[in-house]
């Protein structure tokens, strides 16, 4: 379980890549949803984050289980859905990894797919940290 106290966005490793690809989440995407916030209703961004926190980890687990059962269709379906929601919330790297997984077929090398799922799991941890921090900031 991730702890809000441990969140430190500045600790996310930096690389010589464009900022949009370096950050786990492009927070500008989340901020863009403020303009569709309905008056008197709960914070839309917080609600979207909550839905993602609930949905994304479950999908990654299903992908791992499906891979173990060589259920390729399920792996692809979960990757497809996760790509859509991740991209919509600015989790660019998550979306890109899902984009790598989705077209893979049963004939592709299993270790490569397993490696991608490991990457996906690590990236999800980063994304969840950022989302938890953002949710914490908005609820204060």
């Amino acid at each position, binding site marked *: 379980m991730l702890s809000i106290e441990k969140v430190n966005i500045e600790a996310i490793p930096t690389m010589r890549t464009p900022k949009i690809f370096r950050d786990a989440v492009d927070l500008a*995407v989340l901020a863009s949803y403020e303009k569709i916030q*309905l008056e008197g209703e709960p914070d839309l961004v917080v609600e979207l984050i909550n839905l*993602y926190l609930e949905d994304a980890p479950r999908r990654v687990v299903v992908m791992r289980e499906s891979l173990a059962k060589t259920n390729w269709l399920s792996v692809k*379906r979960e990757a497809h859905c996760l790509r*859509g929601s991740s991209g*919509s919330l600015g989790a660019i790297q998550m979306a890109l990894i899902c984009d790598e997984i989705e077209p893979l077929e049963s004939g592709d090398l299993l270790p490569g797919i397993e490696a991608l799922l490991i990457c996906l799991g690590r990236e999800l941890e980063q994304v969840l940290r950022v989302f938890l921090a953002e949710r914490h900031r908005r609820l204060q």
Partner: protein
Amino acid sequence: MTFQSRPSSQRILIADDDPVMRHLLTSIVRKEGYDAVVVDDGREAYRILQSDADFQAGIFDMMMPHLEGLDLVRYMRTEKRLQRIPVMMISAERDLQLMTKSFIAGATVFLAKPFNTNQFQSTLRILLTNKMAPRSVPL
């Protein structure tokens, strides 16, 4: 999951299996002044459409469990009472052939994910003002 607001002619039917996307679409639709009737798969949308045609538009994800968006729009085009309802097909697919398939099936507009709120709002307005005129929205 089915969320239904008050019956009115300002209703838009939304079907998407992704909870994040569902909530996002619902928020934008409501911001535009419409009521959202929201379901999480194509089969549930089909059930609603069997007895209720009082919608200004339908917004369907292409890939959904049980019944895909394409099948849903094909059904709507075979039913006279549903034929006037314009449909926006949304998809995370990159295959341009799917866009063509959407139009052949009877979709009115097509929007690729991910999209920003401006793109969605513009497409929704096109959908509601140019009913049944097939067109694509730039990817």
